[in-house]
């Protein structure tokens, strides 16, 4: 469903390049390194799926890119280049002008992301004025147009509703409208469809794909739901313990996973067409961000571990066209 867009005008230049991103929180138990060298690139109009279990750092990656890490957390090293600009070096005001206008972020639980005491139409209009460079007088009308664009039925009525009067699906559509107000080039959707019922999830994905191809917008689709990632993303990055352990074209990563963690994730998801009755849950837990080991962080839980895995931290290596993995072990030894 996600046809690859024609080559962008500057083919070599990625829209977003994240390199060695490290985000840390000082805590009583020591420094919690929630991001430990996140590296990935995202091309114009492309979609990258970011998957991983809770706490692996998916949301923190999004917040770090936008400079919204809640204090006392801080991005301590790394680079985030967007359209050639280093975002980590921008001042607060310059960074604010990136948010909404270049990169927008939408969250899970849309109805919590609106001002509870303001009609949603007014909130969309306000954003259009602030980041969409729409004149004050035209803003209300354009807000209704935008709500129509995200396929809300009777948009002028919806515009007059307060957030608590919206259903989850309606709320996420309004959230999409607000994210589009500044005509961003990149939309980060953090679990944007999770928590909605399945038909609504599919509708939201469809809506995003539609606006994405229409506006030639890239998307970072963050989800723990591998199915939705397979639907939406042309490329996928798998996160574990604050780092990306495997990345590549979605078909390759899901079809021929290299990293034992990716394989475990795929085995842990329910399917209809398999004979297997019980799901294989992965035993153990990810290392605490305050106690990241010097060796491979997946070692303790890894079914394919070898002695050398406890001695060195694997660096990224290529295992196929655009397919990279941070694992020392050759996957041929394990069945997948």
């Amino acid at each position, binding site marked *: 469903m996600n046809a690859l867009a024609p080559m962008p005008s500057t083919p070599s230049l990625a829209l977003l390049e994240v390199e060695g991103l490290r985000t840390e929180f000082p805590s009583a138990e020591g420094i919690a390194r929630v991001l430990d060298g996140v590296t990935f690139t995202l091309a114009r109009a492309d979609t990258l799926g970011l998957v991983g279990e809770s706490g692996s750092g998916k949301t923190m990656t999004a917040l770090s890119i936008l400079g919204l890490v809640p204090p006392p957390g801080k991005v301590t090293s790394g680079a985030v280049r967007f359209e050639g600009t280093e975002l980590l070096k921008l001042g607060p005001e310059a960074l604010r002008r990136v948010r909404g206008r270049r990169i927008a972020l*939408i969250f899970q639980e849309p109805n*919590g992301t609106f001002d509870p005491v*303001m009609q949603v139409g007014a909130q969309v209009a306000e954003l259009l004025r602030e980041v969409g460079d729409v004149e004050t007088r035209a803003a209300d009308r354009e807000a209704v147009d935008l709500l129509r664009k995200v396929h809300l039925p009777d948009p002028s009525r919806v515009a*007059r509703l307060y957030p608590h*009067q919206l259903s989850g699906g309606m709320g996420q559509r309004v959230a999409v409208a607000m994210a589009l107000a500044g005509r961003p080039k990149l939309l980060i959707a953090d679990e944007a469809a999770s928590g909605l019922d399945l038909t609504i999830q599919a509708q939201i994905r469809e809506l995003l794909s539609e606006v994405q191809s229409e506006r030639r917008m890239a998307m970072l689709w963050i989800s723990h739901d591998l199915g939705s990632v397979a639907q939406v993303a042309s490329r996928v990055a798998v996160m574990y313990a604050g780092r990306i352990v495997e990345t590549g074209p979605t078909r390759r990563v899901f079809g021929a996973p290299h990293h034992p963690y990716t394989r475990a994730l795929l085995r842990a998801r329910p399917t209809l067409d398999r004979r297997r009755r019980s799901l294989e849950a992965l035993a153990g837990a990810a290392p605490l961000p305050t106690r990241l080991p010097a060796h491979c962080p997946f070692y303790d839980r890894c079914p394919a571990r070898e002695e050398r895995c406890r001695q060195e931290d694997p660096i990224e290596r290529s295992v196929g066209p655009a397919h990279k993995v941070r694992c020392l072990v050759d996957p041929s030894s394990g069945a997948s």
Partner: protein
Amino acid sequence: MPSSLGRRAAQVGGAIVVLAWAAALFAPILSPYDPAAFERMQLAPPGSTHWLGTDEIGRDVLSRLLFGARSSLLVGWLAVVIAISIGTVVGLVAGWGGGVVDAVAMRSVDLLLAFPRLFLALLVIAFWGPSAWLVTVVLGLTGWMTTARLVRAQVLALRDREFIVAARAVGMPVRRLLWRHLLPQCTGTIVVAATLMLGNTILAESALSFLGLGVQVPDASWGGMLNEARGVWRSAWWLALFPGVLITCTVIAHNLLGDGLRDWLDPRMSRIESAERGNSE
């Protein structure tokens, strides 16, 4: 929640506040006599010519009470407007800014709170000489700390709420975020703080005028009238009773109104009706 009782009390309070303002505004029309004029009759008890009697030098008590309402309300409300404005801005900036900004603002609050308010007022008045305007400014400048603390607490509770983070994530400027999204959530707090402060401030104005440091003769003020009644109130009870009752009623009325306004203005309550009624803007 005793809502009907609370609503009735707030209505009574509101009615008294409105009446007091009406009396203050229309004092020149309503007053039967010139409040500063000396009549022939001194210490006349309440009767048909002077409804609430006259004072020691023969001025009409009713007229003076009506004009006194002007001093009390104007000084009280202006001082509160000053205090609320300063307190809100300080609270917003401290709560949002955090860190050093917050520390400096809150330690200043602690410092100012350590001084009794009337003492500060006396100090300033001793230096500049008594006047109604000075009292207004002093009461305003010494009254903002509680509001600052309340607003700061509210901002701290709200700043990490998802809708604030989400608004930042789509590029909402901080100025607008504070003004349009955080401030309205503080309305309830601010209104309650303001009305409670109104009662207090009116009382403080009366106290200062009673001490002769506020509104100056020949202008009338309720506190000043109480002061003038000091020597003779045993025989001329009306001189002390009426201003005293008015001060008490006005202070209580403001407090009742404040409670009512809080219930009504709280943004988390009863927005559904207005939305369903609502027309497009």
